[in-house]
């Protein structure tokens, strides 16, 4: 199996992971190793034990999706995967490239934002929000409008007070069936998403940006059920901090970690470099996507 590329890391994996780009960089020891193996049912010294996630005092994590796989994530570089017998590989990689990637980021001192990230006018713009908020759908609309995509669902942030970079992850967007139908053409190549769930993978090809990019703008997504309450409102100060804190991926990890710098401290070190924070309250209609995107683009290029 050839090494793969993820966030600029060289990944050696027992799983094929066709979602990731192949590694084309220098020969080196892998930055991240993914092995098939046995994952213990219980961590030795958990400081947190929930139904899905356990965290040990040294920051190691056990993450399990019952019908799919158990994962052991250690030191920010070592992942052991124990798939369930009949779990399709694409189901396993779905969780590996989502919550497990977010935990890996936490362990590496990066902030995983629950966001999909696109490039607008040479800047990284992250659409953040919970499942169903429209992150991937907006990213797909942006792709159709010619913008390159950096991430889907997990946006790793690295940097310091003067600059924060969004790290590209892998060249896929995962869409609901309705968004797929509305936004993708016959030329788009897709794979079925998780078994039993109508989600489709859109392969980005040249629409994927592989270089990190300065994150200047975060747009937090919410839904309104009444068109009159649509808005794109700029956030400042504690309100901007609260929205960003709420949209860190896998929040149990930072809350329960027993060692090292807290995630809030790391996050707070990054915030000053993010120039603009918005909340986009949108009517969840596929026909209004371009309008939402244009509103964001107009605010970015107006310089205000």
């Amino acid at each position, binding site marked *: 199996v050839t090494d793969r590329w993820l966030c600029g890391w060289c990944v050696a994996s027992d799983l094929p992971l066709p979602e990731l780009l192949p590694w084309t960089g220098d020969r080196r020891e892998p930055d991240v190793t993914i092995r098939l193996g046995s994952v213990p049912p219980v961590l030795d010294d958990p*400081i947190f034990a929930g139904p899905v996630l356990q965290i040990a005092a040294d920051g190691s994590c056990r993450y399990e999706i019952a019908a799919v796989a158990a994962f052991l994530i250690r030191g920010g570089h070592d992942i052991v995967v124990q798939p369930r017998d009949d779990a399709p590989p694409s189901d396993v990689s779905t969780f590996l490239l989502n919550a497990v990637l977010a935990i890996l980021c936490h362990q590496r001192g990066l902030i995983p934002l629950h966001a999909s990230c696109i490039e607008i006018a040479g800047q990284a713009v992250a659409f953040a929000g919970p499942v169903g908020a429209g992150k991937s759908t907006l990213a797909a609309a942006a792709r159709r409008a010619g913008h390159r995509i950096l991430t889907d669902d997990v946006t790793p942030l690295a940097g310091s*007070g003067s600059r924060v970079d969004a790290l590209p992850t892998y060249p896929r967007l995962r869409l609901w069936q309705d968004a797929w139908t509305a936004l993708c053409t016959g030329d788009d190549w897709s794979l079925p998403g998780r078994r039993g769930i109508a989600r489709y993978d859109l392969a980005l090809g040249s629409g994927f940006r592989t270089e990190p990019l300065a994150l200047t703008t975060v747009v937090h997504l919410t839904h309104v059920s009444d068109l009159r309450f649509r808005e794109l409102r700029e956030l400042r100060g504690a309100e901007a*901090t609260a929205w960003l804190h709420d949209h860190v991926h896998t929040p149990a990890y930072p809350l329960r970690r027993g060692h090292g710098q807290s995630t809030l401290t790391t996050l707070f070190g990054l915030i000053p470099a993010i120039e603009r*924070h918005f909340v986009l309250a949108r009517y969840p209609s596929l026909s209004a996507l371009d309008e939402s995107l244009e509103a964001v683009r107009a605010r970015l290029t107006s310089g205000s």
Partner: protein
Amino acid sequence: MAPTGEDSRNYSYNVDVTAATTVRRAAEILCADVAGEMVLVDPERGQYFGLDDIASVVWCRLEHPTSVGELCAALLADYECDAVTIANDVIALLERLAADGLIEAVP
């Protein structure tokens, strides 16, 4: 000594602030400008606090321990307001900041 894993600190500080009190920022508090507004974070408690313009000015002036009298005199020089109003407002603000554990009186 607090039992491991439990936070036994008392977070409702009752600080009596007078003109003679010298105050300083609490050591563990972080501050940053977030899109034009000052935010303070207490990483231990996982809480953050937004400051309005005048509270931000006061916070900036507390980079080094400062007496309340000095603080009021400096603000009086910068703002068109009477001394009594400034003293009352500053003391009320400092008592709130102290109650949240963001600043402390220097013994």
